[in-house]
C-alpha cells in the first residue's frame, strides 16, 4: 500500500511497513514521523483560491529538498468561472518520491479540497482510506447548494470511507492575520499560504524558499508579503501543535546523478532551449507569435531575454507571426513561431512557403484538446497528422517531440539544429501536459550544448560555373540549398512560393523539374535520418515479445506502466520516438522484433496509422482523449493483457497494480 496515507496503514520504502517514530512537539504533544517512499497530493480549490501557485510553491520546496517529482496542473479555460461552482474548480497534482518518478501519479493519496465544489469534482478519484483535508469554513449551506449537495458531507457520514480532517482553514487564516491591518476579503486570500504551511509541516518541506519567493513576489506591497508569510507560518505552526494531525511524513531525497538542479516546466525549458539555440548558432532569435493557450508562456519567457539578442514580435494573428518569423529567417535570423493547434491550422500556408523557399524555421505546437477551440487548457496529442500532412501539396516537414518538461530544452535545440542544417521548417510538438508540468532538471553546462554554428554557413561567393549565384544548388550530403542573406553583395536572388527550377531557383513550370524538385524536397527530409540516433529501445533483458511504442508526453506514463509490468515478472520493451519525421532509420527493423506492438496515444491512433502505413506492422492502438495524461495502471493492464495473450505460459501470478511506478 505504498503511498496511501500511512496513519491508516503505515508503510515504508517499497511498501515495507515502517513504525512511526514518536517525536515531541512544542506543548508536549507527542507526534510521530513516518517514512514514505512516495506521495501523491492533489490540491483542489476555486480558480480564485490560488491552487496553481500553492502547487508550484510546494513543488519548488519539494524539488529543492531533493525528491524526484512530476506535476499535473489542471485548470479551467475560464479565468474566473463563477466562484464555488464545479466548472470553476482548479487543481494541481504532484507525485514526489525518494526514487525517480515518471508521472504525477494515477490517483492522489491526499486530497486537499478548499470548498464543496473542489470536493465534489475530485472525491471520486481519491481511493478509499485516502487522506482528505477540507476547509470546513467553506461548507456553508449556500456553497453546498451551488454544487447540489442536499446535505453537508461533513456531517452526513458520506465521507466515512476516507480519513477526513476538516479544518477551519479560512477562519484560522483570518485569526492569524487579525493584526495585519488587512481587510477580511484580502486576509482571506492568504488561506492558500496557510494550507501550504500546513502541508510543508506535514511533509517536512524546507520553508525558506517560499518566504523568499513571497518577499520577491510582493516586493511592491510589503504588507501583502508580510500577511502571506504570516499565514504560511501560522499554517506550519498549526500542524506542529494541533491534535488533528498526529503524524508527519518523511520522504527521503531521491538519488540523482551529481550535478546542479532546478525545477523547470516544459514551456520554460522550451524557451530556454530556443535562447540556447540562438547562442550556440550565433544567430539572433526572432520569435513571431500570437497569444494562445497553452503556448503563450513561451512568448512571455522569450520576451524577457532581449539581452541575448532575442527579438519577440506579438503579431496581429498567427499568420503574421509565422510570416514575420520567416521574413526574419530570410534575413539570417533563427526564425521561430510558437502556437497551439488552431494556430498551426492558420500557419499552414506559410509553412508551405518555408518548405518551398527552403529557409530554416522552428514551429512549436503546444498541443491542446481539439478540434476547433476544443479544450484549451487540457492536453492531447491530436495534431500529429496536422503536423505531418496539414498543408497543400507534397510539403514534408521534419517533426520532433519532447518526452518530458525538461526534455523540451533538448528538443528545442534539436529542432533548431535540423532547421539550420537542412534549411527547412521543423515542427516541434509539445503538449499542454509537458508545457505546464514540471520536474527537476539537471542544469546543462552551456559549453556542453551542441555547437550549431557549423549548420549556418551563409553563402558569400557565387557557386555557379559562370560566376553566378545558384540559390538552389545543394549540399550533396544534406541536400540543403545555399543560403545567402540580404546585404551580401553579388548574391542577390529572388525566392518565392512558385515552383523553383533546380539550381537557379527561377520560376519553373516544367513537369520534369517539378517531379524532380518534389522528390528532392522529400529526400532532403528523409535524409535527416542519417543524423539522428538509432531508435531508443528500453528492453532490459532483450527478450521481451511485446513492445510499447510512444511519442511525446506519453513517455512517463508508458515508462511507469512498463515498470509495473516488469515488477510483476513480465517482460516488455519500451520504444520511444523523439523523431517522428523522419523516423529513425532502424525503426522498421526494431518493430519487427516483437510479436506485438502497442501504441498508446492521446488521440485516436495517429502514430499507429503512420507506423502501420510505413512498416506494415499490425500495431495495436490504445487511445484516450480525456484531456489528461494516461494512468499508468490502465496502461499496465493493457500491456499485461497483450503479454498474456502472446505468451500465456510465461505469466507469473503477480498482479501489476500496486507495484512501484
Amino acid at each position, binding site marked *: 500500500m505504498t503511498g496511501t496515507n500511512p496513519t491508516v496503514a503505515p508503510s515504508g520504502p517499497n511498501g515495507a511497513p515502517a513504525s512511526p517514530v514518536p517525536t515531541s512537539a512544542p506543548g508536549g504533544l507527542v507526534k510521530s514521523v513516518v517514512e514514505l517512499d512516495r506521495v501523491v497530493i492533489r490540491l483542489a480549490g476555486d480558480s480564485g483560491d490560488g491552487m496553481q501557485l500553492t502547487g508550484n510553491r510546494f513543488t519548488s520546496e519539494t524539488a529543492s529538498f531533493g525528491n524526484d517529482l512530476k506535476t499535473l496542473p489542471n485548470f479551467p479555460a475560464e479565468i474566473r468561472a463563477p466562484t464555488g461552482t464545479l466548472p470553476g474548480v482548479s487543481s494541481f497534482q504532484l507525485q514526489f518520491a525518494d526514487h525517480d518518478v515518471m508521472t504525477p501519479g494515477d490517483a492522489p493519496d491526499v486530497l486537499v479540497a478548499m470548498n464543496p465544489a473542489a470536493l465534489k469534482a475530485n472525491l471520486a478519484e481519491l481511493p478509499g482510506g485516502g487522506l482528505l483535508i477540507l476547509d470546513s469554513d467553506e461548507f456553508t449551506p449556500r456553497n453546498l447548494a451551488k454544487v447540489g449537495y442536499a446535505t453537508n458531507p461533513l456531517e452526513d457520514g458520506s465521507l466515512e470511507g476516507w480519513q477526513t480532517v476538516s479544518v477551519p482553514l479560512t477562519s484560522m487564516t483570518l485569526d492569524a492575520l487579525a493584526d495585519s491591518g488587512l481587510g477580511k476579503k484580502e486576509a482571506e486570500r492568504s488561506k492558500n499560504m496557510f494550507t501550504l504551511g500546513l502541508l510543508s509541516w506535514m511533509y517536512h518541506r524546507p520553508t525558506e524558499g517560499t518566504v523568499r519567493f513571497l518577499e520577491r513576489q510582493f516586493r511592491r506591497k510589503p504588507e501583502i508579503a508580510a500577511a502571506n508569510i504570516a499565514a504560511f507560518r501560522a499554517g506550519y505552526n498549526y500542524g506542529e501543535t494541533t491534535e488533528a494531525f498526529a503524524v508527519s511524513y518523511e520522504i527521503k531525497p531521491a538519488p540523482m546523478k551529481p550535478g546542479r538542479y532546478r525545477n523547470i516546466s516544459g514551456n520554460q525549458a522550451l524557451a530556454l532551449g530556443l535562447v540556447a539555440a540562438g547562442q550556440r548558432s550565433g544567430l539572433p532569435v526572432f520569435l513571431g507569435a500570437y497569444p494562445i493557450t497553452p503556448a503563450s508562456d513561451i512568448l512571455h519567457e522569450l520576451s524577457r531575454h532581449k539581452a541575448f539578442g532575442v527579438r519577440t514580435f506579438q*503579431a496581429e494573428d498567427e499568420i503574421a507571426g509565422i510570416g*514575420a518569423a520567416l*521574413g526574419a529567417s530570410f534575413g539570417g535570423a533563427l526564425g521561430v513561431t510558437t502556437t497551439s493547434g488552431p494556430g498551426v491550422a492558420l500557419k499552414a500556408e506559410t509553412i508551405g512557403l518555408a518548405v518551398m523557399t527552403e529557409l530554416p524555421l522552428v514551429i512549436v505546437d503546444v498541443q491542446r484538446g481539439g478540434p476547433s477551440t476544443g479544450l484549451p487548457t487540457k492536453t492531447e496529442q491530436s495534431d500529429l497528422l496536422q503536423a505531418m500532412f496539414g498543408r497543400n501539396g507534397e510539403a514534408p516537414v521534419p517533426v520532433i517531440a519532447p518526452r518530458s518538461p525538461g526534455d523540451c530544452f533538448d528538443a528545442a535545440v534539436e529542432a533548431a539544429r535540423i532547421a539550420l542544417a537542412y534549411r527547412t521548417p521543423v515542427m516541434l510538438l509539445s503538449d499542454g501536459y509537458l508545457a505546464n508540468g514540471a520536474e527537476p532538471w539537471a542544469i546543462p553546462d552551456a559549453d556542453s550544448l551542441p555547437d550549431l554554428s557549423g549548420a549556418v554557413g551563409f553563402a558569400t561567393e557565387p557557386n555557379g560555373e559562370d560566376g553566378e549565384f545558384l540559390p538552389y544548388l545543394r549540399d550533396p550530403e544534406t541536400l540543403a540549398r545555399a543560403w545567402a542573406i540580404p*546585404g551580401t553583395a553579388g548574391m542577390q536572388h529572388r525566392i518565392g512560393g512558385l515552383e523553383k527550377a533546380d539550381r537557379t531557383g527561377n520560376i519553373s513550370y516544367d513537369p520534369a523539374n517539378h517531379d524532380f524538385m518534389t522528390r528532392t524536397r522529400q529526400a532532403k527530409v528523409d535524409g535527416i535520418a542519417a543524423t539522428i540516433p538509432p531508435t531508443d529501445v528500453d528492453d532490459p533483458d532483450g527478450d521481451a515479445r511485446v513492445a510499447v511504442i510512444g511519442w511525446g508526453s506519453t513517455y512517463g506514463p508508458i515508462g511507469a506502466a512498463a515498470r509495473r509490468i516488469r515488477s510483476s515478472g513480465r517482460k516488455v520493451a519500451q520504444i520511444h520516438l523523439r523523431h517522428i519525421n523522419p523516423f529513425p532509420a532502424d525503426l522498421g527493423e526494431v518493430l519487427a522484433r516483437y510479436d506485438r506492438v502497442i501504441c498508446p496515444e492521446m488521440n485516436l491512433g495517429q502514430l499507429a496509422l503512420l507506423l502501420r502505413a510505413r512498416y506494415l506492422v499490425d500495431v495495436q492502438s490504445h487511445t484516450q482523449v480525456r484531456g489528461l495524461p494516461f494512468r499508468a495502471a490502465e496502461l499496465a493492464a493493457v500491456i499485461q493483457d497483450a503479454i498474456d495473450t502472446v505468451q500465456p505460459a510465461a505469466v507469473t501470478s503477480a498482479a501489476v497494480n500496486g507495484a512501484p511506478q
Partner: protein
Amino acid sequence: MTTVDIGMPDAPTPIDAAIARSLEQHGPKLTELKGKDLKTDQEVRWCPGCGDYVILNAVQSFLPSLGIAREDMVIVSGIGCSSRFPYYMNTYGMHSIHGRAPAIATGLAAARPDLSVWVVTGDGDALSIGGNHLIHALRRNVDMTILLFNNRIYGLTKGQYSPTSEVGKVTKSTPMGSLDHPFNPVSLAIGADATFVGRAMDSDRKGLTDVLRQAAEHKGTSLVEIYQNCNIFNDGAFELLKDPATGPMWTIPLRHGEPLVFGPDGASCVVRDDFGGLRVAETNQVDAGEIVVHDATRQDPSYAFALSRLSTQDLRYTPMGVFRKVEKPSYEAMMAEQLHEARLQGPGDLDALLAGGDTWTVD
C-alpha cells in the same frame, strides 16, 4: 570590417561575418547604380500594355538615385500580377503568399534594420486577404515602403471585382453588378494612422517618382497607392484622370505648402467644410484666405483623411501626391533600442539563464 547592428551581444554574428566577407570580395558597396543594374535576366511576363511595366520602369530608373546598394534592398510581394515585381528587380526578393507580404517584411525589417525593405502588393492582395496585415503594419510604423498597385480588379485570377472596385461593377463573379462598397486605400491607411500616405498614377512618371522618393526617404511605414491600368480586365479604369481633356478637372495635385487650387485655370479649390471636413469650391466664389494650404505634416490625421474623402468612387476630385508625412519613431528602431537597453545590464549569460533562481546540488 563594417558591422551591421542587428542587435546581438559582443561578438559579430554570422550575419556580420557574411556581409564582411562579401565586402572583402567585392570592395566597397556599390551605391552608384544605373537603371540597368537593377534589371534581371528574367523575361517580364505581364500582358503587353499593362500598367505594371510603366511602374517597373519608373522604379528601376528612380531607385539608383537613393544611393542604396542593390544587395541592401529587399522587395517582398504577395500574389497577383503586380506581385511578380520582385523577379524583375536585381535586388533580394521574396514572392511570398497571398496577402502576407507586410507581415513577412515586418519580420525582415525588424530583424535587419540595416536593409531597405519594400513591399509590392495589389488591391486584392493588400486589402482583401491581407487587409489585417496591412493595417497592423501601418499602425506599427515598421520602416518599409509599401507600393499598392491598385487596378481595381483581380488581374491574376482573370477579372473578378476587388475591394476597390466601384459598386455595381459587372465582372465574371458579379454578372448583375457588385454589391459591396469599395475601400478607399488612402482613407484606410490614414485611418490606421499611417505616417506616410501618398497616391500616384502609373503613367505619370514625374509625379510617381516624386511620391516614391519621399516615401523611400520616410522613416517608418510608407504606403503609396499607385493607380495601375489593367488593360485586359479593367481597361481605362483611370481614364477620367489620365485623359488630358478631363484629367485636370478631376485631379487635385497635392503640393506641400501650396494652396489646393486645381482644374483648368485653377477654377476649383478646396475649402473647409462643417465638422472639420473639406469640400471643393469654385475659386472665384471664395476668399483667397479660405483656400486650404496643403500641409502633409499635420500630426492630426483628420485633415489628411478629409482630403482622401473628397474623391468619389468614380474618381472625380482625386487628390494625387503626398497626403500625410509625419514623424514617429519606427518599430524596428524602438525594438533595437529595447535590446540595447537590455544589454546595458550586461550581455546575456547563458549559464546564469539556465540556472535560473532556485537551484540545488547533488554530490
